[in-house]
């Protein structure tokens, strides 16, 4: 059992998202950095979709009421266990009574903390993701508060002590300052040549109004005002919408199911984690990519994931 002393800016129980209900208007929610969540679970021999905690920026603090194994991936929130630094992307043991602290974000802004066995959570429509607006799923359909207690569904010790730290996965995402890979959509060619040029050359500032619904960009693409009105349709994580004021919105996990703004393109899946880690005030750039390049990059990322699963299979008893 894990006691929340302080949730920090925002702590929610998430999984890989609630798919299958978007036709009813129910959004996917889920972790912003899904890859980090999957890796943190894989390191513990959990199902990759098991519920984990998503922590945001600094300030979270927990006390372990029971001994259990944990793994932490995504942003580097300077995590410590009783004052001793905790490695990213490696399983670690927390004894009953020990304190886990996440004082300050060094790189990125969202970390996934998984527990061996997965956190117990309210499963709605097949997913434990917290739908904050709907008020269901995860931990009683809400963000964690001080005094909340989380339980692991099925704790347990490893059969062999975990050896390897996947430093290469510590933040493939977070560390890189490379532009985000971007796949063009219909509205892109309707922008002025000047704006298309700007989209792929300029740096855009992530607005303070950004949240789990989407990243709002501060600089405007003025020709967006002339775009043909779009019919509302389903949208995905990473979709770049252009409202008439030209300030793009890159949709996140808590996006609404459908959107009516013109869509200039979509950030490739391989860069969704980096999108999740961009902080308000940071800058972001885009580069055009092709479907085949995006696919190759994604498959390479999936191979890294498979390597974690295979390594972890030596550490944990098979179900």
């Amino acid at each position, binding site marked *: 059992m894990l006691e929340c002393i302080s949730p920090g800016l925002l702590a929610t129980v998430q999984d890989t998202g609630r798919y299958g209900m978007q036709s*009813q208007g129910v959004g996917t929610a889920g972790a912003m950095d899904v890859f980090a969540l999957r890796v943190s679970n894989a390191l513990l021999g959990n199902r990759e979709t098991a519920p984990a905690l998503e922590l945001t920026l600094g300030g979270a603090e927990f006390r372990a009421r029971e001994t259990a194994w944990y793994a932490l991936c995504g942003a580097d929130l300077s995590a410590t266990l009783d004052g001793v630094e905790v490695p990213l992307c490696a399983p670690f043991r927390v004894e009953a009574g020990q304190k886990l602290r996440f004082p300050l974000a060094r790189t990125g802004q969202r970390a996934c903390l998984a527990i061996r066995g997965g956190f117990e959570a309210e499963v709605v429509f097949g997913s434990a993701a917290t739908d904050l607006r709907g008020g*269901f799923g995860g931990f009683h359909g809400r963000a964690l508060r001080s005094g909340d207690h989380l339980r692991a569904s099925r704790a347990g010790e490893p059969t062999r002590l975990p050896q390897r730290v996947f430093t290469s996965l510590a933040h493939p995402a977070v560390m890189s300052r490379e532009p985000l890979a971007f796949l063009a959509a219909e509205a892109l060619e309707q922008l002025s040549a000047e704006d298309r040029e700007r989209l792929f050359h300029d740096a855009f500032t992530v607005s303070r109004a950004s949240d789990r619904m989407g990243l709002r960009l501060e600089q405007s693409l003025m020709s967006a005002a002339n775009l043909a009105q779009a019919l*509302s349709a*389903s949208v995905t994580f990473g979709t770049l919408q252009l409202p008439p004021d030209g300030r793009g919105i890159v949709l996140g996990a808590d996006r609404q199911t459908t959107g009516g703004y013109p869509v200039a393109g*979509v950030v490739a*899946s391989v860069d969704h984690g980096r999108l999740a880690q961009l902080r308000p005030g940071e800058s972001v750039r885009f580069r055009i990519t092709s479907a085949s390049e995006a696919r190759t990059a994604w498959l390479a990322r999936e191979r890294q994931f498979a390597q974690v699963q295979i390594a972890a299979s030596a550490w944990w008893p098979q179900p």
Partner: protein
Amino acid sequence: MTLPTIRFLGDAALLIEFGKRIDPEINARVLAAWQAIASLRLPGVRDVVPAYASVTVHIDPALPEQDLLCARLLALCEDLPFAGRPARRVDIPVCYESAFAPDMDELCAYTGLTASEVVSRHSATDYRVFFLGFTPGFPYLGGLDSSLAMPRRETPRTRVDAGSVAIGGEQTGIYPSASPGGWRIIGRTPLSLFKHDRQPSCLLAPGDALRFLPITGAEFSALSVSG
């Protein structure tokens, strides 16, 4: 009838478009395609989502043979059972009395109609539920009498009660849950459009034919208690 087109939307979704208009006939094909694709339960397909004139198929980006999948989906969409199933009729009881209709006076002033004319016109039409989206259970309705159209409020309310029936521009809708909103509120239904722990969760389904049924405040209270 235009042929559907299919293209990638990013690397995790396929967008099938049946047209570029809000049109019940196009939407009927969309809904038939949605049901046909969803019922295939294809591996690697995470979600199938209809809208006015398109179906979006959300896929695992690692799914192999995506071109083959596109061809299969397109062939399916070109050969749909026409018009799909007959529309289900759903009556939504609405109390249009002033306690539930804070914007009725403004709507009357804007449209030049009396409140009873607004009610009779609003409840005389069969509305089509084109699809559900935006928020759980919210129906995108078509069929509003154009004499009732009125622009949204310039400053949205910070809270609109669940069940509020409202007009925003050329559209009418029902707020499934309490939320901020800028539409003109002319009534309220005691029914819940969405409950995550009810089966089925949504009161409405895409393709439904909906009619608003005027009720009194007393009937509203009775239905609120029983519902």
